[in-house]
């Protein structure tokens, strides 16, 4: 199964709607609740990151019997230092993002904790691609 969702920069009222739809699909597929939670928490963190930091992007979700692969591709400023961005507490979030209850520098580390595999590719001034993989069995 393949799904695609557009993410609009700065659209906080809809941030999480793609994660919500993926959650509904996984429930219909009878994936266990602990695995669903890991997937949607990781995806939601990543979705909020795209809304908060990029100029917009797309989520590509591929679900097979064995795993789910989520690719979030955005255009935007990119991440100059990925290893620093992976450190808990490091954040470049705006005051607006912090008012939403985010921007504590916990997003990427939390994605890593919930994913079986996480890959981040980024080019400054071009954009970022985040690939999250979680086994379903």
């Amino acid at each position: 199964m393949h799904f695609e969702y557009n993410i609009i920069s700065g659209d906080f009222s809809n941030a999480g709607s793609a994660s919500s739809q993926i959650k509904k699909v996984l429930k219909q597929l009878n994936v266990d609740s602990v695995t669903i939670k890991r997937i949607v928490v990781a995806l939601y963190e990543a979705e909020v990151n795209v809304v908060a930091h990029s100029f917009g992007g797309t989520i590509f979700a591929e679900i097979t019997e064995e795993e789910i692969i989520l690719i979030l591709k955005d255009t935007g400023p990119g991440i100059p230092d990925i290893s620093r961005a992976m450190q808990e507490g490091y954040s470049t979030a705006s005051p607006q993002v912090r008012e939403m209850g985010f921007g504590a520098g916990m997003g990427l580390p939390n994605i890593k904790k919930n994913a079986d595999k996480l890959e981040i590719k980024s080019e400054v001034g071009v954009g970022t691609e985040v690939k999250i993989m979680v086994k379903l069995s």
Partner: protein
Amino acid sequence: MKIREVVALLDAKVFGDEQMLENEVEFAFSSDLMSDVLTVKTQNVLLLTGLANIQSLRTAEMSDVVNIIYVRGKKITDDMKELAEENDILLMECNYSMFKASGILYKAGIKPIY
């Protein structure tokens, strides 16, 4: 403890299906930081927060939180009610501070996560 008892202890106003007052809750987590809520692995947690916005609902949805108490007199908006109904989440408003609300529930036997 049943949510019905939580509502009575906190003198809270309920928005949602009355049947959900029979929900049982064992653990609670108090935070205005949704990033923290998203790190909670325990199931069936009661969330106390002063962050009354759509993102608190989305965070609850992803974290399998089905009961939220908005403290410090924060008001639940119509779009929050709509999203809560869609996801079977019970919303409550409470005028107490987060400290007071958490203290009352802790004293009554609701357990902390950490």
